């Protein structure tokens, strides 16, 4: 083990594994070593030397790699808050619920002109932004949806009345569209 060739081979293996972007198979380490030195023995010695160190040689799927010791993870990692953005479909559904509540899923789809996945509605429900508001007395008695106080919190609104009137948002663009003809439009937020 104290043979200088073997020590040099250990240096090579260490540097090679350090520099590789993927775990290095023993066969690949062998390619870099001087002839006559066995990669497996070198790797075993390297693993033994680094065991318990800040950076350890570990065998993972596909070969050997260096990993920082697990006990150090809390010290070196930084928790970064990365607030999620809602996907576009969820944002649109949320906006429609806000403006047309109480509104059924079918009505949301009708207004959006696109299907609304159950998972999207679930995500809004889970985030606490919308909640069921009873059922519509039509065949099938579909659930009616409305926004929650948490919705107001998230958008920094005191009340739904602080939302811009929807006519201000869409009337010019959608002159063709008879706003009042849309489902559940009677209960618009500014009236609520």
């Amino acid at each position, binding site marked *: 083990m104290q043979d200088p060739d073997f020590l040099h081979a250990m240096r090579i293996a260490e540097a090679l594994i350090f520099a590789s972007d993927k775990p290095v198979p023993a066969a690949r380490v062998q390619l870099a070593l001087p002839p006559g030195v066995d990669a497996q023995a070198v790797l075993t010695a390297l693993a033994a030397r680094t065991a318990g160190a800040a950076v350890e040689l570990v065998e993972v799927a596909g070969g050997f790699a260096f990993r920082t010791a697990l006990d150090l993870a809390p010290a070196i990692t930084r928790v970064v808050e990365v607030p999620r953005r809602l996907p576009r479909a969820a944002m649109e559904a949320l906006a429609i619920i806000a403006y047309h509540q109480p509104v059924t899923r079918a009505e949301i789809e009708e207004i959006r002109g696109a299907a609304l996945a159950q998972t999207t509605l679930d995500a809004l429900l889970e985030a606490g932004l919308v909640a069921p508001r009873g059922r519509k007395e039509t065949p099938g008695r579909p659930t009616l949806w409305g926004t929650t106080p948490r919705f107001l919190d*998230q958008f920094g609104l005191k009340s739904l009345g602080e939302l811009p009137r929807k006519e201000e948002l869409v009337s010019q663009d959608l002159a063709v569209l008879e706003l009042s003809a849309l489902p559940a439009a009677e209960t618009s937020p500014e009236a609520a």
Partner: protein
Amino acid sequence: MSESLLVRLESYEGPLDALLDLARAQKLDLRRISILSLVDQFLAVVEGARRVRLELQAEWLVMAAWLAWLKSRLLLPEEERGPEEEDPLLAAQRLTDRLEELARMREAARWLAGRAQLGRETFARGAPESLRVEDRSGLALDLNGLLRAYVAARRRGAATRPFTPKPRKLWSVGEALSRLRSLIGEAGPGWSTLSAFLPEGLATPLDRKAALASTLVAALEAARGGGLEIEQDAPFAPIRLRAGASAHAGP
């Protein structure tokens, strides 16, 4: 020497590069550079190149012409130069400065190239670990995004909904004519304004205008048959109707 430069002319990055090479080949001190000897060599090179290939790059010829000018001025006694003319010594100094700076930058490039480079002579960790743990539990929501989403949804909704014009019931001429006929008798012999013959429940201005137009056409039609008389005092004045002579021919 000029032969080898001639052969390599294409490999030079322009005349400045070649000038520097000429200066270095002679181990010239750039700060005490003999512009004159440099000029002669450069001109010889360019002349030689022209004999081989006529299509010498313009920049080489411009430099050659400028150097020839510089040489002639440097040889000329100072008193014989025009007062407006650029001082050839200053021009020569500027060329020397440029060559020096180019020499320095080339040396800097050589110095950099001689350093151990990351990824060639030395290596960094190939598979860095992520030191950031992202907490994605929060939601990034803003009112602006909500409103934009609403507008986008409505716009799409409008675009995907097939356009079906609202069935609009306008007062037809036929309807106007029969209403006119039934009313004109009841109206008595006096004049009545056209608007008195409009149907009831006209909601919008459009409905009203359409009915007015239909009724006028119907009235003209009836007047043509003699069942009705029409009068208007002035343009845009109220149009008035009364039953025609044939309608109450009896009394």
